[in-house]
């Protein structure tokens, strides 16, 4: 059981991180001072980071 939890949680994390990157979740950069386009998180406004 513990083995399944370890495998599932770790590999699931990689899958989640991949999906977040692939779909640009919180992917906007902070040099955008204002925006009315949807953010990666689904809302409006700038939420991202400098790249």
């Amino acid at each position: 059981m513990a083995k399944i939890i370890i495998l599932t949680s770790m590999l699931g994390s990689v899958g989640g991180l991949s999906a977040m990157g692939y779909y640009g979740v919180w992917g906007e950069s902070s040099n955008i001072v204002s925006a009315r386009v949807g953010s990666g998180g689904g809302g409006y406004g700038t939420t991202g980071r400098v790249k």
Partner: protein
Amino acid sequence: MSGEDSGATRINCTQCGAGLNVHGGGRVRAHVCGYCGAEMDTQDNYKVLRQFEDMRRPNTPFEIGMEGEIDGVKLIIIGTIGKREAHFGRSWNWVDHQVFSPTHGYGWLTWENGRGIFTRKMRKVPEPATISSGTIENSENRPTTRLDGRNFTYYSSGKPKITFVEGEFNFVPKMGDTNGVVSLLSGDEMLAMIDNGREIEYEVSTMPDQTTLFESFGIDPQSLDKPTETHPLAPFKRTDNAALARNVAFACAALCLVLALMFGSFGSHIATGQAGATKPLKVTFDVTKPAHLVQVRLSADVDNSWAWIEGEITDGKNEAVAEFQQGLEYYHGYDDGSWSEGSQDQSLYLRLPEGTYSVNIAMAEGGVQYGSKPAARAITIDVWEGVVSTFWLWIGFVVFLLMGALFLIQRFFHHKARWAGSDWDDE
């Protein structure tokens, strides 16, 4: 008192008449009565040699008469000796049980701080054969000796005192007896050099698998107090789950790295444009992959200078969907080697719905480090769509790598804990 053994020969104590079991074979020299404390000479019709009084029985889960197996050899416990070492106000207590095998002779099973340690005498002599207290006091580094191709490193020294005696022994122990002992450690073996005043004897101790050992002697391991310290002979044990977690953590770190590199190659270059730095620049592009990010890279040929770019992205109805500002600065030179800092380009990332867009930029300000040349001669826009962010995968790579490294550090801490009981002082 002693464990039951129906198959043993029995004698009566020649001092008090108590019935005593005899387990120890032909080389037993002394038998100490557990009832009255009389030490009898087994080679001389059990003549009483001396009487031990006021002995306090030490705590141990082993009893005389218990039988078990260590490394495939059947052994029976024949004697019990309590020992005490005191040093600078601290004291350590342990119990040595003499064990006997009809085929392998005598040895010791020691109970110390919740653990059972097996010790056997060595006929081989290490090189060097002795380590004196002077050597220990004056050495810059821990003294070492070599035995059977293994290097043993100094661990501790002392003069333990006998505090309790009961049963049969292949020598004649006395209450209060002390021997000088120098202990040296090599992996899973500890070598003891024992100076009994007449000669130096050598013993090697190992730690058998504890569960197997206790169960073999009929003791429930769960009933014993847990050890409070890491024994110097304790092997480093990693549970299957911990080993799996370590391996999976490293595998996930590798997976994150591969995926990050793969994702970094995604994206299609869809538009470009260049203009003089003093003029505004407009580039129009179509977004066809709204699920992913659009990357707009701003470049300027800044050279030991800086430029401040301001701009906006407008949609097909010429309405602004995003405004941005970005400084570009790049400096380089030679100072004890060539150096550079800053960059001639920066990117902004955003998600845009499907449609046609324009990016409009202009250099709002600029400056040079020295001279009168312009801050930049040209500004450039490049646009990609279908870009995938690698940020989270790089975060995952670092986290999983640290997680795996933590498991490796466990081994280092175990090594430190094993040596924590050493009396060696580097100063």
